[in-house]
């Protein structure tokens, strides 16, 4: 299996608003926003709450657990930097807190519905919040 840390692939286009997310990611943690007015968890990071428009978002540590809503195993990547890694899998992870994020899914046999846990992984020289199966397939 290809060492993902050696890939020459595009990293995140970080802006000041999203720095806390990527700084936590570099430390192997997952943080998301939560709205102090309506209580909803928010991903990806926003300036104001997309649910109630309150200006009351703050960062919190996410549980790092979720489930796989869907996935795709990529054979012909959209970016050439990923060619050495094929086949690899990306998927939609519904976090225990509610929001869904797209992530890189480790493991050979993904299945829709499987429980996932955070698996910080070095991709192209940056540690990103990837996921792996928790207890296998449910």
């Amino acid at each position, binding site marked *: 299996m290809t060492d993902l840390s050696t890939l020459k692939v595009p990293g995140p286009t970080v802006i000041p608003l999203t720095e806390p997310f990527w700084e936590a990611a570099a430390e192997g943690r997952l943080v998301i926003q939560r709205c102090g007015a309506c209580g909803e968890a928010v991903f990806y990071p926003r300036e104001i709450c997309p649910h109630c428009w309150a200006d009351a978002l703050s960062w919190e540590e996410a549980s790092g657990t979720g489930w796989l809503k*869907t996935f795709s195993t990529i054979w012909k990547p959209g970016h050439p930097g990923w060619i050495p890694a094929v086949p690899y899998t990306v998927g939609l992870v519904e976090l225990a807190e509610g929001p869904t994020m797209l992530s890189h899914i480790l493991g050979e046999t993904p299945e829709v519905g499987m429980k996932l846990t955070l698996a910080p992984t070095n991709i192209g020289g940056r540690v990103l919040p990837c996921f792996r199966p928790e207890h296998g397939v449910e």
Partner: protein
Amino acid sequence: MRPHAAIVGAGSLAPQRRTEGASTLGMLARAAKAALDDARMEKAEIDGLLVGPQVGETPQHVPATVSEYLGLQPVMSNVVDLGGASGPGMVWRAAAAIQAGMCETVLCVIGNHRNPEPPRSPNRNPIREFDVPFGASGANVSYALLKQAHMARYGTTDEDFALIAHWARANAQNCPEAIFHGSPASVDDVLASPMIASPLHLFEIVMPVAGAEAGIVTSAERARGRQAAWLLGAGEKITHRAVSQAPDLTSGPLKPSMDRAFAQSGLGVERMSLLSLYDCYTIMVATTLEDAGLCTPGGFGEFMRAHDFGPAGDMPLNTHGGQLGYGQPDLAGGMTHVTEAVRQLRGAATGRQIADPEFALVTGNGATMSEAVALVLGTDA
């Protein structure tokens, strides 16, 4: 409701795999001229202009640039930026502007070249920041995720989806301009084509081509007495941009859009003589058939086996081959579903004309099943 406007002309440039030194403006001009000639109208009658976004070549001031190039001075103009729904989105906006008294005849035109240097500007949106770094670049991944979700939820099979690509290729054999004219594909051929992003095979994905498409929308008054495709109903809905933010993976914003278009027209889906359904990928057609109520959720495979989707069949679908058979001329791909419906309703679909057409359902879809426009067109006001 009495229709306020109709499409009285359609123009298409034949799709091309590649161009060398072509300008989008030049292609738009040729498509516009073809549509105006088809409408048998004079250039001076055009007083409205709707165009698509032109990332790279003319990133700003697009209506003014296109107007100047074409020698037009419109009293209503705008950019419609709804991805593959842009074409159908132009049609109802044109009709609305006409109804509001702002103009009388609108040129709707969209297209792109495929020169060696792709005209793309660097993205700095949330998809670029939060999806691309994980290895998810491009539309294939998004629609692969949608297909996988459909298969997981309903147990639909690759064979079910391959039937959609097979029929697109079959209908392309009646359209000499189609990029896959001369290249039919059986279900087995589709399944044997390379896996690109599981579960999507190559033949389930459109071929990108150069092209341009145009339509002329005019007032009811001016449309009377002409060969016209009347706008009987329209609906639109935008739900998200990134596939991770989709509120539903197995039903899309076309569902409420089609509901609204049918309600406005007073017609049900069973009255449609032609289904002109946006088909960037097989999964998009599957979801649209289900969202239209033509079959149960998860039931599209049985539906595909129960009908003949050719021009002489009981359920004509994408008689130009759809984009899966015709090719996808960038953002103009969605407009091909409009121009094909106009040709069928006006009895001008040479070599693939359906018998006694009355009504057509046209759908447009953009981004990750995010941007939806549905139109109901008819032969009579």
